[in-house]
């Protein structure tokens, strides 16, 4: 977390996950993906619009005592494809993963078209082609419908 020195905004965590380089303003969406709400018992810290060396501004989310699921990683890669996921053990970065947006995503979102065969109870893994990442645009290979960022975020 060298970028945060010398004025470390949020305390280092002992055990857990630090999601860094979140696109500025998208940390709330990340919290939504992680299911953080008023009933959550985990300690969560959030910093928004932090000056960053890589990009102009970024958001950072730290979740204590918890690792991320693959499904959460997939969703995070959709909304902020440059984020890095740091697994922290004993105050050190144990593992660092940069998420990346694949050309096709599976099992992460559902088609918004109610008339699409993927919403008809068929045994199909919902799969989308990524048309563009900025702005985020997905396309259903079955019905051809486009999905925009807002429609995707609404599902998380």
């Amino acid at each position, binding site marked *: 977390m060298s970028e945060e020195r010398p004025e470390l905004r949020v305390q280092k965590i002992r055990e857990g996950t630090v999601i860094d380089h979140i696109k500025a303003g998208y940390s709330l969406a990340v919290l939504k993906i992680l299911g953080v709400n008023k009933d959550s018992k985990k300690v969560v810290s959030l910093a928004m619009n932090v000056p960053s060396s890589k990009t102009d501004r970024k958001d950072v989310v730290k979740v204590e005592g918890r690792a991320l699921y693959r499904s959460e990683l997939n969703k995070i890669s959709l909304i902020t494809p440059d984020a890095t996921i740091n697994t922290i053990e004993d105050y050190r970065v144990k593992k660092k993963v940069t998420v990346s947006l694949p050309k096709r995503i599976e099992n992460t979102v559902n088609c918004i078209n109610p008339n*699409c*065969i*993927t919403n008809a109870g*068929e045994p*199909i893994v919902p799969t989308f082609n990524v048309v563009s990442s900025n702005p985020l645009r997905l396309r259903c*290979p079955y*019905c051809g419908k486009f999905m925009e960022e807002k429609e995707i975020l609404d599902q998380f």
Partner: protein
Amino acid sequence: MVDLKDFSRDEVDYILKVSENFEPIANGKKRSKMLQGYVLCNMFFEPSTRTRLSFSSAMMRLGGSVTGFASGSVSSASKGESLSDTVRVVENYCDVMVLRSSLEGAARLAADISSKPVINAGDGTRQHPTQTLLDLYTISKEIGTIDGLKVALVGDLKYGRTVHSLSYALTMFDVELSFVSPPELSMPEEVVSDLKAEGLRVETTDDLSHVIESSDVVYMTRIQKERFPDPMEYERMKGAYSIDSTMLEGAKENMIVMHPLPRIDEISTTVDSSPHARYFQQAFYGLVVRMALLSLVLGKWRD
């Protein structure tokens, strides 16, 4: 045969060329046993008259047999069976399946699952590739070319799958397209975006009489009453998107009027005897093209 976007221009040209050979069989001048011993299964979860009958007729004219159902209510879908299961069962009973569904992407799913060829006979508002091939065949037979033409699509461009399917296919050709529709029924954004990405020249207008004068093909579609919550609005709208014989007076000599049928009153019966009318010819060509497709997907056509 799910989506014409999966086909190249060469493949489309080839299907149209093969189709010509079937005209004498389609009109009963020649008899054929090309598909003797083969079984076609019509799986129509949504009603259809001409598409289903013309597939059946095409199969029988070539000596094959036909089974199937004409409505989802008589299939086990009414008992809650998934399409996937229905396809896995039905593929045991036939050599080729013809599928119509109100769900978009249904034919893609069926084709992914089935080991037998699946022909999409319409999926929701999306694709109707055999209708499109017969439309292309009609234009090419009746005008002699598709390249270089101005084609106008008129009526319900929002829900009409024939016009979606046809516009996609026309991106393979050098044509100019005009879209003429009420604003409530204009071409969906994803279709327009695809067409423009393919470099197609597209004009949107509400001036039907100008379009009739400048186009080579005027493709009419039915505006369905149920699309309009207000019946008054429907009455007002439908007149603006219908044609009669006097409106065709300023048309180019070789202009043709097409319609996937059924028509209600968007083409007045006074147009039927006009030299521009081609919609009944178009229905005949449907049989021709479907014969060619069946012989091709079953591997029985020899050049």
